Structure formats: structure tokens, C-alpha cells
């Protein structure tokens, strides 16, 4: 998902009418009000505010880079800094584009930070997968096999595994199968898959959600009380 693009999935399930639960917007705190007024100014005040915003979001982007650095050992420090700067640049544009969306449900800085964290996270995920093939066929079934089970438990687990594999093969559409396998079985980041399939995070997650619902329903219809089975393993 790009923060500035329309991403059309809201509630995946219509179980909770969020719009009726969100309270009326509170009065803005003084700091947030100052940010909004300054960023909307058309004179030098506005330019100064945009520079402050960039500095704020660059700090957030660097924070995200630092958090992920242990998994990015193949990238040089200057490459990581370039990613942070690019993320801050893009986040400033997103914030300015969506300034009217800010209703004061949080402090302005908290609201703005999420754009920088998102931009940095997406860029870093994509960078980590750059040049790598995205596996769309099942690779992760070994995670489902447990060694040393008692015979009854092993039989139950085998039944579950067979039912799962059968459901994935028979119940899902080819697109749902590809998305589920890549995201949930093979661990492909959703932004990476969205880019490869020329779609967006929201649409992919909706596909994943629908596939998961189908699997659960199918397994329950086969008499596998999956939630109970999972709870029993806790």
C-alpha cells in the first residue's frame, strides 16, 4: 500500500460498524493546530513548516531503518540513509496531500509519523526482495510437521494437514491459492507481492482474507473443529 493512493478495502468483514463507534473529532491540541496552520500557510511560514515536517519524518524513517538494520546486512550505510531520505520525501508529499484527513484523533506528529514508517517499511521490504524470485508454489509445509508426536496426535495432525492441502488445491480460486501460498505459507511480504502482481496491499489482503474464510469453512464442514484444535495447542 502506498500511503497516498486510494486503497479500497475498509472493514474486511462487516461485523463492527466502525463509523458509528468513532467519537466526534476532539478539539485539536495546540501543537497540532500550529502544525496545520503553518503547513497551510502560503508564505515563508509554510515553507519553514514543510522543512520542519521533513526533518520530523526523516527522524521517523531513520528510526524504521535502524529497527530493520539487523536484517539488512547486505545494504551499506549510505544506501540505508538514501532509503530513509527517499521515504521522508515521499511521506511529506503524502502528509501534505492528506492534510484535510487529519481530524485530531491523535497528535499531529503521531499521525504524520505513520506515513514515514510506512514508506520506509515498504521500501525496505521491497529492497530486501529485490532480484529474488517470489515463490508462488507451496514451500513451507515442513513447518506443519511435528516430530515425536504420540500416534493419536500424529494421526490427527496428518488428517489436518491432508485436509488443508486438499482444501487449498480444491476450494480456492487460482488467484486465492497463489496469494495465500505466497503470503501465508512462503512468507513473501505483502508489498512485494503487490508490486509483482501489479496490485495493492488492500486488494491482496482482501484476497487473503477471503481465502482464509473459505479454508476455515471447508475444514469445519469436514468436521475439523479448527479453532478448538488450535486452542488445544495453546
Amino acid at each position, binding site marked *: 500500500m502506498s500511503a497516498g493512493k486510494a486503497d479500497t478495502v475498509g*472493514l474486511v468483514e462487516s461485523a*463492527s460498524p466502525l463509523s458509528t463507534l468513532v467519537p466526534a473529532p476532539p478539539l485539536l491540541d495546540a501543537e497540532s493546530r500550529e502544525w496545520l496552520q503553518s503547513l497551510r500557510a502560503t508564505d515563508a511560514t509554510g515553507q519553514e513548516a514543510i522543512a520542519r515536517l521533513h526533518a520530523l519524518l526523516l527522524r521517523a524513517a531513520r528510526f524504521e531503518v535502524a529497527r530493520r538494520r539487523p536484517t539488512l546486512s547486505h545494504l551499506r550505510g549510505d544506501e540505508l540513509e538514501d532509503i530513509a531520505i527517499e521515504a521522508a520525501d515521499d511521506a511529506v508529499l503524502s502528509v501534505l496531500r492528506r492534510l484535510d484527513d487529519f481530524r485530531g484523533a491523535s497528535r499531529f506528529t503521531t499521525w504524520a509519523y505513520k506515513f514515514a514508517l510506512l514508506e520506509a517499511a515498504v521500501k525496505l521490504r521491497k529492497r530486501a526482495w529485490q532480484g529474488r524470485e517470489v515463490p508462488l508454489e507451496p514451500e513451507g509445509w515442513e513447518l506443519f510437521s511435528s516430530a515425536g508426536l504420540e500416534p493419536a496426535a500424529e494421526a490427527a495432525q496428518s488428517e489436518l494437514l491432508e485436509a488443508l492441502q486438499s482444501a487449498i488445491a480444491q476450494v480456492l480460486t487460482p488467484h486465492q491459492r497463489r496469494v495465500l501460498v505466497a503470503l501465508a505459507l512462503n512468507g513473501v511480504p505483502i508489498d512485494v507481492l503487490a508490486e509483482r502482481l501489479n496490485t495493492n496491499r488492500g486488494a491482496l489482503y482482501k484476497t487473503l482474507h477471503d481465502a482464509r474464510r473459505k479454508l476455515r469453512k471447508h475444514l469445519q464442514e469436514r468436521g475439523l473443529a479448527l479453532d478448538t484444535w488450535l486452542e488445544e495447542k495453546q
Partner: protein
Amino acid sequence: MMERPDLKQALGRLLGPATPEVGCEECFDQLDRYVELELTGEDADAAIPGLRAHLTGCPACREEHESLRALVGGEQLL
């Protein structure tokens, strides 16, 4: 029974949350409010139903939640 902890996690990733959840866009829109409610000790899950379930089912949104919470929470400690 001897079992690998991977198993439950793998099943959880495959089947996702059992409860209703918001989508990625709604999660992004509500994330700042959710984090501030969490950090002030309020019941964020009651205030924004379905967001916690989404964080369980969506690793990318979960990572971004963890980052925002760590960043804002760290600032409050300063």
C-alpha cells in the same frame, strides 16, 4: 504431546484471525489513534474493534504498528 511451536504459528498464518477484522486501509487510518490509546492505558481494542485481529493476520501492518508504538512510546519517555 511433543510438538513444535512452529506448528501453531504456521496454522495461524495460514488461517488468519477467527474474529472479524478491518482491512489494511482502515488499519492505517486508525493506527495513530490506536497507538495513542494503548500508550495512555485506554482500551484501544474496545474503541477500535477489529484492528487487533487485523494486526494478528497482517504481518506488514503488525510491523508498522510495532514501529509507531515504539517511536511514540520512546518519545514519551524522553
